[in-house]
C-alpha cells in the first residue's frame, strides 16, 4: 500500500472508559462488514472529543472547524460524489455551533452520513452544557442548571423529510454497528444520533442511565410513516427508543441536481487522482 497513512497508529486522546471507544469500534466493524474501500472514505469532523475520531480510523480525514463539519462534508460530496462522506462529530459541534448547517444540509438531503456523538455535554472544553443537556444539568457555566429545552435533532430531521433518521447508543455497540451500516447504505442524508456516555463530565447520563432507558423500536414501527416517526423522535424519558426512526422518500441532492447527477465534478480534472 504505497503512500498510505496508517491512521490507526495514532494514539487516542480519550479518557479511559469513554463511550467514544465503542463508537470507533462499531464504525470499524461496520465499515469492515460493508467492505468499504477505505480509499474512497472521507471522515469529516469539526472540533471536540468526538471530532478526534477520524484520526483514529483508517480513512481520508477532513478535521475542520468547530461546528463546520457539515458544509465541509457537503463540499466534498459535491466535488466527488463517489466518495463515502461520513461525519463523526459531537453534539455541540453539530447541534450548537453548527445548527444552521444541520437544518440546511437536511433541507438539501445531500448524501452525507452524520454520526453525532451525543454525550449531552461539551467534553473537550471541560463540561459546559450542550444543546441536548438535560434541563437542570449543573456545570461551571450553568451554575443554576440548564434552563433551555433540549434540542431534538431527530424530530427536526423528520419534519424535513430526510432520507434516514436513526438513534442508537455507544452502550449497545451491536445495535450501533447495524445502524451505521443502514445509514451508510441509505441514499441521501443520514442522521444517526448516538447517545454516548462521557465518563468525565456527564455524571447524569451515564452508561447505566442510557442502558436503563434505550429500547428498540417495536417491530411494527413503520419508518415510512411520518407520524409514527415523529412520535418516536419525540419520545425521551424512562424509555428512549433506538432504531431506524424514519426513512424519507426525497431523492438525494446529488441525484436530483441536474449537473451533479452527471459524472463526478472532480472528473473534469483528474480521472485517477494519485
Amino acid at each position, binding site marked *: *500500500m*504505497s*503512500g*498510505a*497513512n*496508517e*491512521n490507526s497508529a*495514532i494514539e487516542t*486522546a480519550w479518557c479511559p472508559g469513554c463511550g467514544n471507544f465503542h463508537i470507533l469500534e462499531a464504525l470499524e466493524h461496520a465499515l469492515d462488514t460493508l467492505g468499504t474501500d*477505505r*480509499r*474512497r472514505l*472521507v471522515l*469529516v469532523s469539526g*472540533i471536540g472529543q468526538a471530532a*478526534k475520531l477520524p*484520526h483514529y480510523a*483508517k*480513512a*481520508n*480525514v*477532513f*478535521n*475542520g*472547524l468547530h461546528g*463546520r463539519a*457539515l*458544509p*465541509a*462534508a*457537503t*463540499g*466534498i*460530496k*459535491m*466535488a*466527488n460524489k*463517489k*466518495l463515502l462522506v461520513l461525519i463523526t462529530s459531537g453534539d455541540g459541534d453539530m447541534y450548537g455551533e453548527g445548527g*444552521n*448547517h444541520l*437544518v*440546511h444540509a437536511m433541507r438539501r438531503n445531500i448524501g452525507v452520513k452524520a454520526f453525532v456523538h451525543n454525550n449531552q455535554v461539551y467534553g473537550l472544553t471541560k463540561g459546559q452544557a450542550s444543546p441536548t443537556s438535560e434541563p437542570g444539568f449543573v456545570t461551571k457555566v450553568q451554575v443554576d442548571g440548564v434552563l433551555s429545552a433540549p434540542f431534538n435533532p431527530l424530530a427536526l430531521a423528520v419534519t424535513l423529510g430526510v432520507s434516514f433518521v436513526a438513534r442508537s447508543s455507544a452502550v449497545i455497540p451491536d445495535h450501533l454497528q447495524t445502524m451505521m451500516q443502514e445509514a451508510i447504505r441509505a441514499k441521501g442524508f443520514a442522521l444517526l444520533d448516538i447517545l454516548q456516555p462521557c465518563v468525565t463530565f456527564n455524571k447524569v447520563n451515564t452508561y447505566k442511565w442510557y442502558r436503563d432507558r434505550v429500547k428498540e423500536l417495536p417491530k411494527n414501527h413503520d419508518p415510512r410513516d411520518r407520524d409514527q416517526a415523529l412520535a418516536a423522535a419525540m419520545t425521551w424519558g424512562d424509555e428512549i427508543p433506538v432504531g431506524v426512526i424514519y426513512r424519507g422518500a426525497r431523492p438525494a441532492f446529488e441525484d436530483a*441536481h*441536474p*449537473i*451533479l447527477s*452527471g459524472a463526478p*465534478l*472532480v472528473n*473534469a*480534472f*483528474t480521472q*485517477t*487522482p*494519485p
Partner: protein
Amino acid sequence: MTTNIRICGAAGQGVQSFGDLLARTFASMGLHVFATQSYLSRIRGGINSYDVRIGSEELFSSARKTDLLVALNRESMEQEKANLALNGVMILNTAESGGNYLALQMDKLAQAAGGTARMANSAGAGAVVSVLGYDLDALHKCLTEEFSKKGRDIVEQNLDAASRGYRAVAGHEGLVRAPKPAGAPSTLYDGSTAIAIGAATAGVKIVFSYPMTPSSGVLTALAGLSHKYGMVVEQAEDEIAAPNLLCGAAFAGVPAMTTTSGGGFALMAEGLSLAGMLELPIVIFLSMRPGPATGMPTRTAQGDLAFAAHAGHGEFPKIILAPGDLRQAFDLTRHAFELAHKFQTPVILVADQFLTDLQKNIPALPDAPDYINLHLAKKSAPGKAYERYLVTDNGVSPRAVPGGDSYVVSASDMHAEGGHLSEDFNVQIALQDKRMRKITGILNEFIKPEIYPEPAGEILLCWGSTYGPCRAAVNLLRARGRDVCMVHFPMVWPLDGAALAPLFEGRRVIAVEGNGTGQFALLLRQAGALREFSLLPRYDGLPFTAEFIETEVLS
C-alpha cells in the same frame, strides 16, 4: 469627443433596461461605451440613474455632467437637472410639454405601436438616438436581437415604438453633439460577467454563495452559465458555511468559489483561516460597498481592504487581487485560481459596486474552457508514505486528493507533516515556517503596478477599480501641465516593502482611495514601501470620476 446620456427615474420604472439597451446599441455602432449605474436599496420608488457615456476613443471614467438627461418621472428630473451640462438637453416622460425639456410620452408611444407600456424604453431609445443625430438602424438591430425569441409580433412592436420615439422628437435631430462611431468592439460586458466568465473558463465547478449586493451580479451570471460549463451553483444557508464548503470541495480536488460583500466576508474570516491552515486553494470574491455594518448596500467603496488583508486569526499566507478594468477582471479571476492552486492558500478577489456594474465594450473575452493547472501531486514515491504537509523549501507540499492511492489527512488543529494532530512545539515551528515560506514565492509572482503614462514627480497611487478614473484624471492633469502619473496596483497583498520603495522615493504621493483612511497607502507604509502620502479619499458611496480627482488635486 464624448457625450454623456443619463437615464433617471424611480426603481421599478425600467431605468436599468433602458440604459442597457442604449449601451448595447451604441456598442454595436462601434462607439466606445462606458456605462455606470446608481441605484437605491429598494425595489420600487426613489431615484435611480444610469449613465451611458459614449466616445470616439476608449473611455475610462464617467462624467460629472449630463449632456442628455432622460427623466422617466418629474421628480428625478428635478433632482438631476442640476447636473446638466452647458447646452445640455432634457427629455421628460410626460404629456405636459412647455418646460425647458422635450416632452415625450413614452408609454403612449409604445401603446400606439400596439405594444405594452413595457416597450416604453424602445420609444425612449428611439428619441435618444434621434437627438444625438444617429439613425435608427443600430437600435432596430439591437431590438430585433433582444426580442427575436419572443416572436415576430413583439419585435415589430418594439421596432415601431422606437421609430415613433424617433419621430416624436422630429426637428431636434442632432440637438446634442455626439461622437462618430470609431470602430470600437461590439462586445459589451459588465464587470460581473467578466468575472463569471473568468471563473467558469478557469474551471470553477462549485459556486456557493449567500446573495449580497453588490456581489450578486457575479453569482447570477455564474448561475446563468452553470449548464454551459457544468458548474454547480448552490445558494448557501449563510456566509459562514461558504469557505468551509469551499475547503471541502478543494480538499476533494475541485476549484470552488464564493461571492460576497463586506458583511458576508466578515462572517468568512474563520473559514479563511481554515483554508490557510489546511493549505487549500479557495477563492473568495469580495465586492465592496460602504460600511460599517449594512452601510449603503447599493453603493461603492474601497473600505474593506485593510480588513481583508488581515482577516482571519493567526498568521498564514493570503493573496489579494484587485482588478482595475473589465479585461483585468477576467484575467485576474483566472489568475486567482492559478495562484490559489499553485500556493495552496486562499485568494481574495476584490472589486466593488462600481466595477461589477460597470459596462464597457472591449474585445471579446475568450470563453472556451481553459482550465488552470491544479498542481496536483503525481503518484507518491513508491514505498514512501504520502504526507500532505511535507515540509519543503518553498513551503508548498505535494497535494493529493482523496480517492487515490494515499490517504489524505487534513486537520485544523496543529498537525505534523502527515496531517494528524500534533502538539509538539518543534513541529509547530516547522509547519508554521513552512506555510509562511510560501509568501516568498508569492512575492516573486507579484504583479508589477502599472505606471501611466510614465514615471513623474507626482504619483496618483491607486488600486483596484479606481484604475479608469485615475488614468483619465492623469490625462486631464497633464493637459494642464502637471508632472503627474498614475501608479496602479492590481495585486495588493502581500507586499514587498523593499522592492516597492524605489517606486515612490523622492516623489509626492497622492493616495486616491474609496475610503476615509487611505488603507492601501497604510499597507504600503506598514510594509516599509512608503513614508509620506496625502490622501484623496471618497466615501460618500459614489465612484470616483476623473473630474472629481482633477478638482481635488487642483484644490
